[in-house]
């Protein structure tokens, strides 16, 4: 029987992906997403041109303004501002939809849904069959929650997508976030990719020697063993890294070098962020 005949004789039903395959795909996707974010951070968009410190402060101000707002118009205005920034920074709409809007809607929706029925107030409709009352106050509360979270998450994603991660870390350092915390974040980011690579190699090597599907208990055993091996490797790696640090003079104190220079355009951007965030707070306070 030739390979072609074997393939034709095989059932055509689409095979459900195994645990190992799904893990490999997940690890590859995680690495691809980080590569995509790094590429986007180096494109020639509006946010990409702004000093990282200004972006961190500015986005934080907008995020706080959205979180504090009690006026739906202000929140939607900030959301529209986020969309404009995304457009001017060449961040595709589908990236926002896939990475933030849909996951946030699902997650926040689960939290907000019971409030539609349980918040006391004016009933505006009843759920068919169950007859539960949907209250105006409940709908309003859920809308505020979802729009606030969507807006805040969009600002955060824009910051991450339009700034190389290393610059975000340096900006945090400049903004007086404790150095040790920033260094730990940086090393975590650095080594998470190495561990992802090791994990992917482990799963691929297992996949290359496997035929058929694993049973549930076998999948759990495989996952447990893989976690154990990764933990052991990460322990060895951390010892070696510490020695490499010692070898170059590390004595427990962290010293850093910052190289950011504020230009006129950065001061303008900072003023722009402050103006929009301030305006949002004032308008919200007035109405």
């Amino acid at each position, binding site marked *: 029987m030739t390979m072609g005949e074997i393939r034709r004789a095989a059932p055509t039903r689409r095979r459900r992906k195994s645990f190992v395959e799904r893990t490999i795909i997940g690890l590859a996707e995680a690495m691809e997403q980080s590569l995509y974010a*790094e590429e986007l951070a180096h494109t020639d968009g509006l946010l990409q041109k702004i000093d990282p410190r200004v972006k961190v402060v500015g986005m934080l101000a907008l995020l706080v303004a959205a979180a504090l707002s009690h006026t739906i118009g202000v929140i939607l205005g900030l959301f529209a501002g986020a969309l404009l920034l995304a457009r001017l920074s060449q961040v595709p709409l589908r990236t926002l939809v896939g990475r933030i809007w849909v996951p946030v809607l699902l997650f926040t929706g689960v939290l907000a849904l019971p409030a539609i029925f349980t918040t006391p107030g004016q009933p505006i409709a009843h759920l068919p069959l169950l007859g539960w009352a949907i209250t105006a106050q409940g709908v309003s509360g859920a809308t505020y929650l979802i729009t606030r979270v969507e807006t805040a998450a969009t600002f955060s994603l824009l910051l991450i997508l339009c700034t*190389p*991660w*290393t610059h975000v*870390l340096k900006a945090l350092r400049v903004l007086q976030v404790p150095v040790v915390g920033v260094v730990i974040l*940086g*090393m975590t*980011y*650095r*080594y998470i*990719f*190495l561990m992802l690579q090791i994990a992917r190699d482990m799963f691929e090597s297992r996949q290359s020697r496997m035929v058929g599907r694993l049973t549930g208990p076998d999948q759990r055993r495989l996952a447990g063993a893989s976690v154990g091996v990764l933990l052991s490797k990460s322990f060895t*790696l951390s010892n*070696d*890294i510490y*020695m*490499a*640090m*010692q*070898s*170059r*003079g*590390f*004595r427990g*104190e962290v*010293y*850093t*070098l910052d*190289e950011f220079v504020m230009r006129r355009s950065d001061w303008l951007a900072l003023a722009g962020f402050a103006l929009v965030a301030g305006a949002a707070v004032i308008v919200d306070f007035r109405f």
Partner: protein
Amino acid sequence: MTDVVFDVQQVTYRYTADVTALNGVSLTIPRGRRVAIMGANGSGKSTLLRILDGLYFPTSGQALAFGEVLSEEHFQDDTFAFAFRRRVALVFQNPDVQLFNPTVFDEVAFGPLQMRWPKDEIRRKVADMLDLMQITHLKDRSPHRLSGGEKKRVALASVLILDPEVLLMDEPTAALDPRSQSQVVDFLVGWGGGAKTVITTTHDLDIVEEIADDAFIFQGGLIVAEGTPAVLLRDEDLLRRTNLIHSHRHAHADGQLHAHPHRHVGHDHE
């Protein structure tokens, strides 16, 4: 000023009660010599380098650097530790271990920052070093995005910026493509103009004569031979006994099968 950089006397190092990496090793490394330490995997080469770099301390025996004992007590003293770290540098076999900073620039600046050099001087020297190693274009890149050869160059830059007197290299050509290997060898041949001490562990016999004046062969945590690379590399029996060369059956172009000991040179046989 002493002309001996390292003086290792009867050093034994045990990882656990059952695992002995070095078993009574004694050797002397004079200043300005280029030394190769050869041996198969697990022969104790890397452990010796870590002892010479003051990262491990002997279970018994003693190791001296520049006439001073390398001990945990000595490294508690900041003055001694900084002076030693300034003079001796180690390039690890796995560059991923050594490249722990978010960017290449930060990586090269790490050593000088620990030495508390003035920041302007650090910026200038890092730029010069990146230029020298032809990696300026990588300065804002994260080390995990680099190729093996690029990582090795960054690892070298990160220790050379301190202008050490002694360079310890652990398997510098391991897992590198031929072009990157030749760049590393060219560097080792040219670095320091003969004034620096370079100790390289390797089981890549093809680079030994180029990078070393003296050589030691390790096996099972012991020195089994020492001499010039030219003499040691001619001793086929010694190399076979220490697993540095091997015999296997293979076919030649005329179809004849036979076996003889040989070294690998790229993809060809000698």
